[in-house]
């Protein structure tokens, strides 16, 4: 076999490093591995230093703040992995979903969840269809659909809060073993499903390859249209599920609830180390990012920092993560 000039020996080290990271952290990206370490360190340090951090009530509060955002981040991650950057209508979808949840809860929690998630899925498919078939810019499209969705929501609610007439306490306040919120269980199951689809299924691999290089995917005969529809459907469903979680705590829906899901989900995805270029990253990265940001938010909250500062802090963290990730990419085998 012809040994071509310059099969660089040094390529072994970054690859070996990635294998090591993969074995240890379940991820192949240095950025993602760093965030996992950082999250652990942050939690440990906070538990040691920050007063009230480890109190039962606070831990509960932390877990609840992770659940909805984590689910949103998972949906966003699929869109990002497919190369479509971000879906900026997740907040609107979540907000409208809280209203829908409250309006339907009298049908029972299970039925309501099914219907709301299904509608989110449909909204996602429509947007995916516009983007895939119409070849429309994914970000601007979702900016447009976001306002259409909210507009529809305002027409329905008239800007008022919808008060649900049903019992959503299993989801809203339910705990397993007395301490684990059912919402975390929902998050875990959702993450497992998403991860399975991405890693093990054919369409999941097609989503990833589409994100890596759309033109190659097209010529290779991959089902690019289906892949786009699937990831947007999933993201829509995720937003709807997140909205349901938010609404379940009080069985009420309002168009200001969950409207910031876009920001939070994007922040989680970026901080978690999923590549903006598409194709690289894992579902667990998005969840880790959500946990990391939730911990920071919680630390600030428990230390009495006001909401405004928290937003500023989150923005800084996101920018820092973006810079960090970009620097890492540059230092690696600079082929990109």
């Amino acid at each position: 076999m012809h040994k071509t000039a310059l099969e660089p020996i040094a390529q072994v080290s970054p690859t070996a490093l990635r294998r090591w990271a993969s074995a240890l952290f379940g991820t192949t990206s240095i950025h993602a591995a760093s965030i996992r370490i950082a999250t652990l360190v942050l939690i440990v340090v906070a538990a040691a230093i920050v007063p009230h951090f480890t109190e039962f009530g606070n831990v509960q509060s932390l877990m609840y703040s992770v659940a909805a955002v984590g689910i949103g981040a998972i949906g966003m991650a699929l869109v990002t992995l497919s190369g479509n950057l971000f879906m900026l209508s997740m907040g609107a979808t979540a907000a409208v979903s809280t209203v829908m949840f409250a309006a339907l809860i009298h049908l029972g929690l299970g039925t309501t969840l099914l219907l709301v998630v299904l509608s989110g899925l449909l909204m996602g498919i429509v947007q995916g269809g516009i983007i895939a078939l119409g070849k429309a810019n994914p970000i601007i499209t979702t900016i447009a659909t976001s306002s259409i969705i909210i507009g529809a929501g305002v027409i329905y609610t008239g800007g008022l809060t919808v008060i649900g007439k049903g019992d959503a306490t299993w989801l809203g306040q339910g705990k397993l073993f007395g301490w684990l919120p059912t919402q975390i269980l929902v998050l875990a199951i959702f993450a497992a499903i998403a991860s399975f689809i991405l890693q093990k299924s054919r369409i999941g691999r097609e989503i990833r390859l589409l994100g890596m290089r759309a033109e190659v995917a097209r010529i290779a005969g991959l089902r690019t249209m289906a892949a786009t529809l699937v990831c947007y459907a999933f993201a829509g469903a995720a937003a709807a599920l997140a909205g349901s979680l938010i609404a379940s705590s009080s069985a009420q829906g309002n168009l200001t609830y969950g409207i910031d899901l876009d920001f939070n989900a994007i922040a989680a995805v970026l901080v978690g180390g999923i590549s903006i270029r598409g194709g690289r990253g894992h579902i667990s990265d998005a969840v880790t990012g959500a946990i990391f940001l939730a911990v920071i938010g919680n630390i600030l909250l428990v230390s009495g920092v006001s909401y405004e500062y928290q937003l500023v802090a989150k923005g800084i963290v996101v920018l820092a993560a973006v810079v960090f990730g970009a620097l890492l990419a540059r230092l690696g085998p600079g082929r990109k």
Partner: protein
Amino acid sequence: MHQSQRLLNLAIRIVLLVGMPVIFGLSVNHYFSQANLYAIFQAFAFLGIIALGLSVTMVAGEFDLSVAAISTVAGLITVKFGGDSALLGILYAVVFGVVVGVANAALLPRLGVSSLVTTVGSMMFLTGVGYWLAGGRVLSYGNLDVSDFLDHNVAGIFSPRSFITIACFVVISLFLRFTTLGRDIYASGGHRKAAIQSGARVGKALTVGFVISGGLSALGGGLLSLSLATASATMGSNILLQAASAAIVGGIALGGGIGSPLGVAMGVLILTILNNGLGLLSATSTQILLVNGLLLLIVVLLDGRLGAVLASPLDRFARRKASAPV
């Protein structure tokens, strides 16, 4: 056919610019009254300056998602720190906008990060800053004389604010057409890799593009706040949607490298005429929002189809269309 698509676009714009006023004029009383035309140009004053800034980054092949956030914070800065001198307040605001522009651009070429990502980050960051500055309240500006001055009637339908916007359009138009940096901005958007390889000053061009965007957004936000004599953290939340629509309707291609300030001005006018007309027809603000959303959707779809026709530069070269078979 690239040329014919652009001509078609232009024709559609002209038809809309002429047709809509006709339709509205027939449906609504006093449509062509001075008061109404003045209202249209007042809306133009704010949307125009934001759309202009955004469009410069789009021409450079980027997209400044933070324009709305910049204008909001700029408004807060102007009101908060322009107590004694409105001019000073505006100055602070514009400096702030320029600094944000530099920051937005700084991460780009060196780190190879897309501006869609960096400006999402700055948008989030600035939203937080906005809440912090406003402290949960609506700030008010004491000097109502400034407000009166900015909005007083000039030549029947204009005002100093709309003149400032028009002046900005003229200046930016000259800049893009008659400077080497302007040419490099178009090159950076037309084909980034080619621009870098040929030695165009891409880094500088992008920085200037974002500085223009940040500066203009800040100027617009500051002037708006002075004119309304208030500033809050949630002002101008829909302006991003409208600015993007106006730019794309105005012929700015999402892919970059194509479009002009004149086209953007037309796009802004189309949008302001549309919203003004809808309002006169008793549409609620929600309905107007819906229409704007639908319009952007349609426009993005058209741009996508156009994009597929024009194809990326690499694609086009691969297809190797010969200008004449040899």
